[in-house]
């Protein structure tokens, strides 16, 4: 997703000289297509993310559209107050680009896990928050939003190969995208883990459970109307995110259910707590936190059975999808 992002950014920068790229000394072998093509519009500001966002604020005041690039945690959490008091408060078109949502930097440990970025960013009115599910959707989203007024946070994945089956790169600001048809279960997801959700849905179909997978890449503005409309049709919604269960897509869905008074149970699959000191691959961490496609399917079946006992009759209690 990150390489496709830079490729698309180069295309945009060819058309619009206002675009600048700043990095906090990250993106080796990723940002070079931009830095080599536009050496005068690229700044490695060093390991200094607060200053990077402050600089971008000053640049945007003069009419530039600065993109600032780092790993999710360093792009959002370290300079959070600068983002709040800078581009958000001033309504300047700074683009915060965070790479590695969720557990993509798995072996690097907790300092590198992007688990609350969407929560803290979408709690701020006035910043667009976009978390694409794959590189195709990322490209569509960037092309649709790069010159919006006001700041944007882009939460990118590292994966430039996987595509979410059925998504086809669709994106619309303030809207959600649906994959598949079904009446039994609604799965709502954001970010790269959408591919796990789609695999889970396919397995559930083999068990006679029909699902719709809703992908939300536009977290702010949130697709409230889309959510309200579809949640009204389901008794059970499963939210899936590589993010803490507080603040992300599970929270968003719960807010809509509560605000609209909908009779839909929401089961939030996400990260509830982190075991101190334990790291591992993204796949390992997905399994640890119940976010692998097989465990998501099990959670779905269990939740369905709690609503209606017939769901578990004659069904396996162990899922072996992969």
């Amino acid at each position, binding site marked *: 997703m990150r390489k496709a992002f830079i490729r698309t950014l180069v295309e945009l920068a060819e058309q619009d000289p206002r675009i600048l790229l700043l990095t906090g000394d990250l993106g080796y072998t990723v940002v070079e297509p931009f830095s080599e093509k536009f050496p005068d519009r690229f700044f490695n500001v*060093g390991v200094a993310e607060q200053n990077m966002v402050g600089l971008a*604020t000053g640049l945007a005041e003069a009419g530039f559209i600065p993109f600032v690039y780092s790993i999710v945690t360093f792009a959002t959490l370290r300079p959070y107050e600068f983002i709040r008091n800078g581009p958000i408060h001033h309504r300047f078109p700074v683009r915060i680009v965070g790479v590695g949502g969720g557990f993509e930097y798995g072996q690097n440990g907790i300092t590198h896990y992007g688990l609350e970025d969407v929560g803290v960013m979408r709690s701020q009115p006035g910043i667009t928050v976009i978390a694409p599910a794959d590189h195709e959707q990322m490209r569509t989203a960037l092309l649709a939003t790069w010159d919006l007024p006001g700041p944007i946070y882009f939460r990118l994945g590292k994966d430039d190969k996987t595509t979410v089956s059925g998504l086809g790169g669709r994106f619309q600001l303030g809207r959600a995208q649906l994959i598949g048809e079904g009446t039994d279960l609604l799965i709502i997801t954001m970010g790269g883990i959408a591919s796990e959700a789609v695999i889970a849905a396919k397995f559930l179909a083999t068990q006679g459970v029909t699902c719709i997978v809703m992908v939300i890449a536009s977290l702010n503005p949130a697709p409230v109307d889309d959510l309200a409309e579809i949640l009204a049709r389901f008794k059970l919604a499963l939210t899936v995110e590589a993010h803490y269960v507080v603040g992300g897509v599970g929270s968003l869905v719960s807010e809509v259910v509560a605000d609209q008074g909908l009779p839909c149970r929401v089961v939030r699959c996400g990260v509830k707590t982190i075991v101190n000191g334990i790291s591992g691959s993204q796949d390992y961490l997905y399994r640890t936190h119940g976010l692998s496609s097989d465990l998501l399917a099990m959670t779905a079946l269990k939740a369905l059975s709690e609503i209606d006992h017939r769901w578990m009759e004659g069904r396996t209690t162990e899922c072996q999808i992969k």
Partner: protein
Amino acid sequence: MHSEPIIHPEDKKISAYKIRRVVLDQSKRAHVGHIGSALSIAEIITALYANVLRIPDPDDPDRDRFILSKGHAALALYAALYLKGWLTYEQLNTYCADGSLLGTHPERALRGVDFSTGSLGHGLSFGGGAALAARLKKSLRRVFVLVSDAECNEGSLWEAVMFAAHHNLSNLIAIVDQNGQQAFGYTKQVLNLSPLTERWRAFGWNVYEVDGHNVEKITATITTLNTTFGPPNVLIAHTIFGKGVSYMENQIKWHYWPMSDEEYHQALKEIGAIP
């Protein structure tokens, strides 16, 4: 008490006296503090707005930029904006009123304020970006950032200091209001900044020490700066917290307290507003 303008509308030539007069009058009217910090920069603000800043109009995109990074001294800035004619007396009199754009920290929504500030450690980064923007646009405009000495506690300030030096942002001029005072006492007791001049110099800036209460010397120092080539420039302005009002000078309580009627009367006498 202040239904009439305290300064004759035809006599708006900026002076440190007038800045102080507005600071005292508005602080008293609004019954708020931060007086000592605003008095500390009266001459710096005067030098900038009377002699240095090239601002034909606050909306001119090629104007010099000014960032009051020590935003809690906003009243001194409002006084300058009023004396420049960019703020009416009626607007000035809304200082700290409900629904006013003139809070104790400056907001960009107010004409004449380039960047909102209030959280220390932001302004020099904003200024670095503004200076870089000027260079990218091949503009000769300059960016002035007024920081407090206690603000130099903030790590982010030194990130900005390093960036500006690395990129030779000669059009960036920082002014440190070195009054030696911070919220809990003297800077040398809270978190020692000494030797501040040497620290800025070691980070690659051209450093100039000036008497922060001498408008002519501040002006003359800035006039000699090379703002088109070489390192960024910083003035370490030696100031006195609460300058001009004897009972406020170097007294930390005037970071917080409003004046009583007697204190206000005494202050006006000391700055020469009344006999």
